[in-house]
């Protein structure tokens, strides 16, 4: 009962503060919005790249280049044996001629150069498709090592590409963490400064509140509520802006790139991320206000 009344008075006071300090409130919310927008755009980019990797990574193709001394019959025997591995879902044999043909087809410009060579420099190969759930580079590597034999000239599973992509994603994740840290501390600083300004503007009020028997919490909590409300508003504004930007970019991708990129889809952040951003915004607001109102003028108490 009494607690409910208290909460009511504290919330009313928080909104009074906000109304009386419109300019500071707008500045604070704008700062939170900008930093949350920067961070969540980053998150959106990361989320989509990670997603894409997952999609591509599923379909691991291993190319086994055979020495020229290996005949097709021998190759097919090896292939039959490879298919007994549970990691392998499909396999096919590509002869030297087929390799040259597809090479010339994909790079028509250089076909003439290879013709001039007189001999076919491309090796025959066995193409393996690995199981979907083998997306982990370490697992692929282990498998590839385990099947290696002396008939193989080289085994290539677009390893470099996947690893570079993973490394890039790692880099992205770390820059994201650093960026989040910087943005968060900047926001907390600015929130605490603006709330402090509002706080100093009310010093006389606190003295009077204390004189009529208000506890320290009664005086401080409205400022904490103010911080949380500002954080919440900023985070939600950032999400709305991000969504608008996403729709625009999505529209561009739809008309142009989407065809070329095929299966890759550009998706918006899932609701769990959105909820996390809102909570993060509220947390920043709360932290900023806690930092600014730690000390309250105390009348007569030392």
């Amino acid at each position, binding site marked *: *009962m*009494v*607690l409910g*009344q*208290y909460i*009511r*008075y504290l919330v009313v006071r928080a909104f009074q503060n906000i109304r*009386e300090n419109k300019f500071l409130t707008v500045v604070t919310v704008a700062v939170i919005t900008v930093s949350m927008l920067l961070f969540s755009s980053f998150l959106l980019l990361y989320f989509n790249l990670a997603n894409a990797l997952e999609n591509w990574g599923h379909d691991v193709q291993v190319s086994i280049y055979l020495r020229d001394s290996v005949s097709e019959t021998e190759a097919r025997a090896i292939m039959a044996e490879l298919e007994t591995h549970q990691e392998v879902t499909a396999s096919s044999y590509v002869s030297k001629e087929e390799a040259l043909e597809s090479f010339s087809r994909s790079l028509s410009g250089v076909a003439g150069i290879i013709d001039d060579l007189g001999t076919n420099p491309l090796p025959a190969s066995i193409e393996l498709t690995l199981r979907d759930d083998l997306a982990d580079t370490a697992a692929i590597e282990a498998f590839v090592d385990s099947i290696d034999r002396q008939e193989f000239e080289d085994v290539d599973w677009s390893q470099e590409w996947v690893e570079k992509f993973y490394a890039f994603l790692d880099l992205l994740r770390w820059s994201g963490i650093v960026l989040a840290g910087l943005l968060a501390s900047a926001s907390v600083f600015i929130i605490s400064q603006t709330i402090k300004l509002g706080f100093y503007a009310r010093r*006389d*009020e606190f*003295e*009077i*509140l*204390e*004189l*009529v*028997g*208000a*506890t*320290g919490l*009664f005086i401080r909590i409205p400022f904490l509520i103010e911080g949380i409300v500002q954080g919440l508003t900023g985070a939600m504004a950032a999400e709305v802006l991000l969504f608008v930007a996403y729709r625009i970019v999505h529209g561009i991708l739809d008309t142009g790139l989407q065809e070329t990129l095929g299966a890759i889809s550009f998706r918006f952040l899932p609701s769990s991320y959105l909820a996390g951003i809102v909570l993060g915004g509220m947390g920043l607001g709360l932290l900023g206000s806690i930092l600014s109102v730690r000390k309250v003028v*105390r*009348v*007569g*108490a*030392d």
Partner: protein
Amino acid sequence: MIEMFHVYKSYVEGIDVLMDVNLHVSKGEFVFLTGVSGAGKTTLLRLMNCTERATSGQVLIRRRNVARLTSSSIPYLRRNIGVVYQDFKLIRRRSVFDNVALALEVLGTPRAEVQRRVMDVLRSVGLQHKYLQYPPTLSGGEQQRVAIARAIVNDPAILLADEPTGNLDPDMTIEILKLLMDINNRGTTVLVATHDRSIIERLRFRTLVLEKGRIYH
């Protein structure tokens, strides 16, 4: 209710504002505190609601030694003491209603009751029609009455009034004194600091005289 033993107070090292003050105000009493300007009346009241601490000596409020109160229990002491400040101490940005309501809100009083009690007390000080105005738009006497309303709205055990009639005309002075006596009749211990001899002579309550920091009875 209020007791002081050998109380000394100095704001500046070496200058005693209060010297060896001893007093006892019983529950339900109505007492005047008088003395020339600068005698230390306000200082004495400040010691009672813990806005200042005695340099030495003991101050007991409701048998509790205020020097021993922790800073977190001071608010609870203050809720039992209504104070009319000489300089009113009203919040300029809050309406008359909100200023008075504050004393009840810190107690967690339900909204409907706040509404009723604030309007009642404003009526008793003759300001019910000004409840939406802000302190800067009121006359000195009106602000003083808002301060009185805030001090008595929660029926405190003790009422300390520092020059509560300082800005009032004779008619309003009588009104306010009646109000203070009313509250006193309902059981509140009242201590009124004033240098207005006429009201002290008219009412004939016990009077404490402060002279150069010492109490004379």
